[in-house]
């Protein structure tokens, strides 16, 4: 909205290319680019510095790893959503309140990108995303995705099970929850310059949820690195929960004994809760959750409890009639 849009030119050059990004590029250039390529890349590095992350962002160092092998265990009952739809209709409040944040999101620097794991763990660690990918069992899964706003899509995600990451971290015996914190970069993310939201984006899971086989850390989609608007370089896919639980741009995972308060829960707790499992029987205060509109075709299909993943997760929740688990 025009009230608080910041123009591109209002962002200083140094803010548009944070120093660590610049250093990251250098490292990348030294490592990956052959001598013949280097001059051309250097030329566009200058450009990128002036425009805020330009062409170089396209060269994802993990691109060569894709596509990952598909895990056939997770089947769809519907067509995959066209890639162009899934990558152009995005809720990502860090970059604005409309669905059309593709352009704004391109300013996010995604390399280097470190993930920090801390809190109640045996082995707190900070690990570079590309190193992390080398240590994780990479695979592709086809999942349905159900937004709390009653639209849905079906996406081939690439990534690794969250359980593998939990195993790496070795949680202490009294850790009960995981808190996921996304990036905080108001200098590139216009939405974060709205000072009243308690940024960064926070979401949470119980340890049992996080180690459920469905919980998936995403690095890519459609057999490629994920685009920035979809949460690159690291996001969650929790197909039995409403979409807002699947944080994007994750930088920190904290193991704790206290139930985390998600950003949406913090600002509108009556509408968005901690569990947020999909359930057509519990309406959002302003709309029915009985059906969902498919991105792309616009077809309407009935919504299923746990988004159809009950066989995997129903045992996590003691009471199907308790609203606490379903908003």
């Amino acid at each position: 909205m025009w009230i608080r849009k910041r123009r591109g030119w209002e962002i200083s050059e140094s803010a548009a290319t944070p120093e660590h990004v610049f250093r990251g590029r250098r490292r990348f250039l030294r490592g990956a680019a052959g001598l013949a390529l280097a001059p051309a890349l250097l030329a566009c590095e200058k450009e990128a510095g002036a425009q805020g992350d330009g062409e170089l962002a396209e060269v994802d160092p993990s691109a060569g790893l894709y596509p990952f092998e598909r895990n056939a265990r997770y089947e769809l009952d519907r067509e995959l959503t066209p890639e162009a739809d899934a990558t152009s209709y995005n809720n990502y409040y860090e970059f604005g309140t409309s669905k059309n944040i593709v352009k704004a999101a391109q300013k996010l620097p995604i390399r280097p990108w470190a993930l920090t794991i801390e809190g109640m763990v045996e082995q707190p660690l900070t690990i570079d995303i590309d190193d992390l990918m080398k240590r994780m069992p990479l695979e592709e899964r086809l999942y349905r995705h159900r937004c709390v706003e009653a639209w849905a899509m079906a996406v081939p995600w690439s990534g690794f099970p969250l359980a593998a990451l939990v195993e790496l971290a070795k949680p202490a015996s009294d850790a009960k929850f995981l808190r996921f914190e996304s990036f905080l970069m108001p200098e590139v993310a216009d939405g974060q310059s709205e000072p009243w939201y308690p940024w960064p984006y926070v979401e949470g899971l119980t340890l049992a949820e996080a180690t459920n086989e469905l919980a998936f850390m995403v690095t890519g989609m459609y057999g490629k690195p994920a685009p920035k608007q979809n949460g690159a370089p690291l996001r969650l896919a929790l197909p039995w929960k409403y979409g807002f639980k699947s944080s994007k741009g994750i930088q920190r995972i904290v193991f704790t004994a206290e139930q985390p308060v998600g950003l949406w829960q913090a600002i509108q707790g009556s509408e968005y809760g901690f569990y947020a499992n999909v359930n057509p029987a519990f309406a959002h205060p302003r709309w029915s959750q009985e059906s969902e509109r498919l991105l792309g075709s616009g077809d309407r299909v009935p919504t299923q409890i746990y988004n159809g993943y009950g066989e995997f997760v129903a045992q996590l929740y003691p009471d199907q009639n308790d609203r606490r688990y379903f908003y």
Partner: protein
Amino acid sequence: MYPWLDRSGRVSGLKLSVFLALLLPGAWIAVAWAFATPDPAAGGLIAGAVTSATDAMPVTKALHEIGLWTVRFLILTLAITPLRRLAAWPALVQIRRMVGVAAFAYAAAHFFLYVVQQNYRFGFVASEIVLRFYLALGFVTLLGLSVLALTSTDRAMRRLGGKTWQRLHYLVYPFTALGLWHFFLQSKIDVSEPVLMSGLFIWLMLYRLAYRWNGEKSLALWHLLTLACASGALAMAGEWAWYEAMTTLGGSRVFAANFSLAAGLRPAWWVLIAGLAMALLKLIADHGWGRNRAAARTRAAA
């Protein structure tokens, strides 16, 4: 009688241009929808030129934009009388009915788009309107606006007679308030635009009260300055109260943002600026073109 003709049946430049301007947002939204494509390359040149947005859910987008224009046109309808008086431009009254009817037409299109978004499940739409308070508010507003639009033909106006017609059409104030309430309630969290529109609505209502209180004589500059400050302050207080009462976030953080430019000028300041612009308009009209117009009229008469 066509909306672009004046009383004597001649084409009026003012009415014709306003008529076309009122069609413009709708036409723009329709074209953007027609060319909506998630893939900018596939949409080609036209899509690139008319839509900044690529869109996988064009119906929802059009629904929202038409809703916004409905409220804007309602506010504009209510602004015409003060504008006419402050700018000393009596001819403006000719376009008031047209803008109001356009607001109704947009509201009807907005409702139709909701039916499309719900894949034409009429029974479901009816039950949603009953179940969801904000939809019930929208529906009552739409019914109210349709009564006002239906009684706005020349024939209906003649049949009702000026006094009755006027009394009936005072209902546009409560209906606008209901529409604004619907606007607030449908927001996910950000109520900047509803606050802006409601702040303008507050100015328009305060103006009318002040005009009455002043014995229906033109308001002085200091009246208008007071109105501007009062509506800005009410908008700011209202925004605080909304977040305080309706969200877990609370009001104080948003209130504090009024005094920082980090996120741009907050809506209450725009309300103040709009109020000051009305005062400025009066100042200019009194000293500049008001006199020129009066002179022109005398010349024309002579």
